[in-house]
């Protein structure tokens, strides 16, 4: 270890990315010692400036390996209808609306200019805003498969998550038959998308719970500055990059080898675990710097693992305290378990006691939850960080493959028998 690394004050530039950094499981992907060039800004400057759209169509859904945007609106829905045809019609309507919104266009016939006596098709608050790299990603929860005679289509890998040590789950912030993850560089664009999809869904689905997020806590662009979480730490230094085709194939995308005939519809998809993790911000802020760094197993300024100089230096796990977060979450501790994280910080005002209701909204994508999130989270049972965090919401979703073209729609592989 060198003193120079520790004494370096964080540059102005590196602080720009403050606001989110993967907390729990932060170091899960800290692996390679590749020194990456940094731009100090996770957003591709060109794309962010132009507010360019992200391609909606593809073999995989956008919003997973896509460079992480700044803002999130995540919504979990319950299905109200028991009419399969009606539900499929809604998925098709959603797809059409999602295709338009991600391209920066309003829903239907737009927000104005129509009949004066009728409400406009689009709610209008995104008019004049750029596409802002909006991505919309749909997922199907375990409970969906109890409906529409889909039980035998439920993939084996879509397990019900076990109860983890320290869980204090609020059922009103957990579960859901399906979910939509909206990510964009402009919060209004993300909220607009969820609002319009919810509107189209009335009578068929209802929002069960939703979460706003800001300050991405993870990066899928390794050349970028690693973002910080609300505890002020960098986390997830070696998260899977959107360009790492081999690691994505190995850890994120469901392979045809993973599925049987009944769950073949998941090929090219992924599994999402969403956890609302509340942070005890006030007590954390009263914790000494040394303890904070010991808890994470990194220094606070540079983000270097214990005993190392640079953030991206290969961590030496044995130098860390046995219960340090990075050590417990690291793939080497977990038999190579690796996930793709794209979590966000959240601050939902204050609770009745004046404490900040804040933390990390953790989103992890993986090829198989049983080899990804579950072993890592089990390993974190003794994490010293647990004194400062609590998991209060939890959900799991099967993320179907991408919408291939203009004629395709969300969930077609599941709902069309011939597919």
């Amino acid at each position: 270890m060198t003193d120079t690394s520790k004494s370096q004050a964080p540059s102005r530039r590196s602080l720009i990315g403050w606001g989110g950094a993967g907390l729990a499981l932060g170091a899960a992907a800290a692996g390679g010692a590749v020194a990456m060039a940094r731009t100090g800004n996770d957003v591709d400057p060109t794309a962010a400036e132009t507010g360019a759209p992200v391609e909606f169509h593809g073999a995989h859904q956008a919003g997973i390996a896509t460079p992480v945007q700044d803002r999130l609106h995540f919504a979990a829905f319950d299905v109200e209808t028991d009419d399969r045809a009606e539900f499929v019609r809604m998925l098709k309507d959603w797809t059409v609306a999602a295709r338009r919104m991600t391209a920066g266009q309003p829903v239907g016939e737009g927000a104005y200019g129509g009949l004066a006596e009728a409400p406009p098709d689009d709610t209008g608050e995104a008019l004049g805003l750029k596409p802002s790299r909006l991505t919309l990603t749909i997922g199907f929860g375990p409970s969906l498969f109890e409906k529409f005679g889909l039980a035998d289509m439920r993939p084996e890998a879509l397990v019900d998550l076990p109860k983890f040590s320290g869980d204090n789950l609020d059922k009103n912030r957990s579960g859901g038959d399906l979910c939509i993850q909206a990510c964009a560089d402009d919060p209004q664009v993300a909220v607009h998308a969820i609002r319009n999809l919810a509107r189209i869904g009335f009578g068929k689905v209802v929002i069960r719970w939703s979460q706003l997020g800001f300050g991405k806590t993870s990066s899928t662009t390794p050349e970028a500055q690693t973002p910080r979480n609300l505890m002020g730490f960098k986390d997830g230094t070696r998260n899977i990059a959107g360009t790492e085709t081999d690691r994505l194939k190995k850890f994120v995308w469901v392979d045809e080898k993973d599925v049987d005939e009944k769950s073949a519809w998941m090929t090219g998809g992924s599994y999402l675990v969403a956890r609302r993790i509340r942070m005890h911000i006030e007590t954390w802020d009263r914790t000494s710097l040394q303890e904070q760094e010991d808890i994470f197993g990194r220094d606070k300024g540079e983000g270097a693992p214990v005993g190392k100089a640079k953030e991206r230096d290969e961590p030496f796990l044995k130098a860390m305290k046995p219960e340090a977060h990075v050590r417990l979450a690291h793939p080497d501790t977990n038999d190579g378990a690796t996930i793709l994280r794209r979590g966000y910080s959240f601050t939902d005002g204050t609770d009745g006691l004046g404490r900040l209701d804040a933390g990390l909204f953790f989103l992890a994508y993986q090829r198989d939850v049983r080899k990804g999130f579950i072993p890592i989270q089990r390993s974190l049972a003794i994490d010293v960080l647990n004194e400062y965090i609590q998991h209060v919401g939890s959900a799991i979703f099967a993320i179907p493959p991408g919408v291939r073209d203009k004629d395709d729609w969300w969930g077609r592989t599941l709902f069309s028998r011939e597919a």
Partner: protein
Amino acid sequence: MRAVRLSVVTAAATVAALTAVTGCTEKGSSGDGDGVITVTATDDKCEVSKTEVAAGSVELAVENKGSKVTEVYILFPDDRVVTERENIGPGTKQRVTAEVKAGDYQIACKPGMKGKGIRQDIKVTGGSTAQRDPRLDKAVAAYREYAQTQADETLPKVETFVKAVKDGDMEAAKAAYAPSRIGWERTEPVAESFGDIDPKVDLREDGLEDGQDLEKDWTGWHRLERSLWKDKKLTDRDKELADQLVKDLADWQNRVGKAEITPTSMANGAKELLDEVATGKVTGEEERYSHTDLVDFKANVEGAETSYELLKPVAQENDAALTTELDKQFAALNTLLDKYRADNTSYDFTSYDKVGEADRKELSDAVNALAEPLSKLAAAVVK
């Protein structure tokens, strides 16, 4: 209810203005020529000198030969008023003029100034026409009649409630409270188009405006609701308020028949009733002391459904998928509401404080499921 709100009729009035110029009092240039219709009103007759007249300035020369005070109207086929003259005393003459476009109309005399009146069909020809789908005219006329019936049936129920209040009979007053509101809640979009009546009779405690005094300025049902359920006593002030309630509602009863109603205002009125449920009833704010929210809830849904059913023939033709969805969602909401009453004809609903959070969410979801497609009804009607 909010103290001030945009009338549902505002948008409707604009539409109406395109089809008719009403209430013009300029004297017709044709003098006693073609444009004049002589109307001879008695207690049981309404005789007109001709039933066909040229478009343009039309003048009614009215003579009341009966024994009762009367009023005379020119009405559109949907009962909208083209022009009117009230308080024509026995033995007196009045002249009423209006600009009238080509189309079918009725002249109505109302001896005693009550009811639908005695009608005569007239035809106005030539010039530009004010044509609308006759099915929509029929729907509007039927809705007007419905609104009037609701008002007419409400008054005796309010009188029962008021009598109990004045007698100091708490139990009888409590029992009569919710039923006295049903007719109002069914036709609220029409009722509230008379902005000064709504805040007088249906204002909630938190609806008072800045500078208004809770004791002095707060009148109507909910003020009495508070006395009955929260204060648990009836004061002299409550008795005054009870009398005032009857007076204000009688005013409403007299004005309902003249409300500006159009097919789109009916459609949007139906949606507004669901909005009332979504914002006030589902939260339990409306009837915070009596917890009779589900009675209002049901009445709002019934009022919305009546509007919808009247417009359905036209809406179905323009957007069959929409009416299929609306049929389904009305049925679903009604089925859900039936869970909260012993039998399907009773208005004795579960007290809303006994309805748990999960059940309130279920009700709220059902309201949203209906209100969203209902917001598209107006477009389907005017297409």
